[in-house]
């Protein structure tokens, strides 16, 4: 089994301007935040971000690195509307592909299966089609002749996901209540980089959870980054819950440019994940 251990900065070195980057997790849940902050520290620009959006989307939209966003929603869960994302949208200038959240997974699935689209009914009659004229409909070739929406494949250059456990070869294990769509993100991407709470020997997976929790196969993973509390301040159960106080502080910076600059300088400009955690833990 190959050894794929690397650092956040090793991941950034493999990325380039204009890439389409998918980010796993859901809202403010199990987001690969140490990798997102590495993106923020980089010089990368003109990115397309594909995500069931949370603070990953808020931070990247705010940073000016994003040309286009594809999402079903952007939310902090306990704070329903993501304030930094809202600001970026209301300022204009970011192209968006706003899909039904169920249809969104079909775009990932189509990319994973290397087909151009998957059909569904979601979107007919709604402004999902009016506002996104690039999405087309398709007529069933069978006798019913039904018109359906053809959700285009969301081919990703790179996927970033965060798991509870992984081995050095790139097999990933989730121990929380929901995998969300992280396996589809990995399969939809040319390259996937997976951070995790803890790298463990392969034979220890079954000490952590049942075989059903080992959901990310290494054939879809190019790099493994050990990042304890790497999803902070989003939740990563059972290892930890959401840091609600920190999330509130983050959300409040949207209203106050000085507070934002201070937040950015203290946390986002921290040169490494370790330095970030030291700031989070500082009194």
């Amino acid at each position, binding site marked *: 089994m190959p050894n794929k251990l690397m650092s956040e900065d090793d991941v950034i070195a493999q990325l380039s301007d204009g890439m389409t980057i998918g980010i796993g997790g*859901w809202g403010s849940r199990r987001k690969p935040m140490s990798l997102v902050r590495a993106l923020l520290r980089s010089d990368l620009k003109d990115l397309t971000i594909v995500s069931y*959006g949370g603070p990953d989307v808020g931070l990247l939209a705010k940073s000016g690195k994003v040309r286009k966003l594809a*999402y*079903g*929603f*952007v*939310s902090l869960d306990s704070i*329903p*509307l993501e304030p930094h*994302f*809202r600001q970026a*949208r*209301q*300022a*204009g*200038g970011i*192209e*968006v592909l*706003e*899909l*039904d*959240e*169920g*249809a969104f*997974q079909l775009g990932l699935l189509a990319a994973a299966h290397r087909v151009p689209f998957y059909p*569904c*009914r*979601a*979107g*007919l*009659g*709604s*402004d*999902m089609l*009016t*506002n996104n004229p690039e999405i087309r409909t398709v007529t069933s070739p069978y006798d*019913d002749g*039904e*018109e359906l929406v053809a959700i285009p494949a969301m081919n990703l250059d790179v996927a970033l996901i965060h798991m509870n456990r992984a081995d050095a070869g790139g097999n990933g294990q989730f121990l929380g*209540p*929901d*995998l*969300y*769509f992280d396996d589809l993100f990995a399969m939809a991407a040319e390259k996937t980089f997976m951070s995790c709470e803890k790298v463990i020997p392969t034979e220890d997976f079954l000490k952590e959870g049942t075989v059903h929790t080992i959901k990310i196969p290494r054939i879809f993973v190019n790099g493994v980054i050990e990042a304890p509390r790497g999803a902070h301040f989003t939740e990563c159960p059972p290892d930890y819950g959401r840091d609600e106080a920190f999330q509130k502080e983050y959300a409040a910076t949207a209203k106050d440019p000085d507070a934002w600059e201070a937040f950015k300088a203290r946390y986002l400009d921290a040169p490494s994940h370790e330095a970030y955690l030291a700031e989070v833990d500082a009194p």
Partner: protein
Amino acid sequence: MSAESTSEATLDEIVVIALAEAFRGNGEILCNPIGTVPMCAGRLARETFEPDMVYTDGVSVLSAELLPVGVPDAVAVPETYMPYRTIFDLVWSGRRHVVMGASQMDMYGNQNFAAIGDDYSKPKAQLLGMRGAPGNLINNKTSYWIPNHSTRVFVPKVDVVSGPGYDRMRELGEQSSRFHHIVRVVTPLCAMDFETDDNRMRLRSLHPGVTVDQVVENTGFELVIPDDVPESRQPTAEELQILRTQIDPNGARKAEFG
């Protein structure tokens, strides 16, 4: 418990009953209410007249036993694992009745919670996005709980259609619209439905003490008003007792009333 020993139902309890009534006759489907008042309504319906429905713990399982609302350490007794992926499959199967909110709604039930403003590339106010509205409306039953009955919400024309209403469905034709069904719209003033010849929104019942004029004044389009509008029904003593002591013992539902 006798009716005499039960204090009179308050508005939040009338509303819960009006929404619970939306589930009547649904049978063995996923009851999927979003928000505290809708969750109270779904749980009350299951505890009383729709015992076969299933519902989620809001995380990843269906709860076999009554799961109280607003009790953070309440633990579900799982009857099925139900992560988001399975929820989406279930939406498309149609065996589901969802209750959502709306920032804007028009007379045919077109719903917007995506964004406010005419320019999609630069909205005046970005809201939730499409979330599951386009797929919900065209695949399974949908009802709405709208805590703010005002002309700001009930408008002649919504800025963005996230959940399509009946006029849009008519344009699509019978084949595409065959699973579309908006069952009920409930507010602190009244219950409404679309049971009219042209599927325009109709006043179904008035909550106690509310007048037709009050509803008309706070609705920004012409509602269908029948000659006789009944009063929304009172909860039974049993329903009140279950709601107050078992479903929502801390009164979390009251927070959704201004």
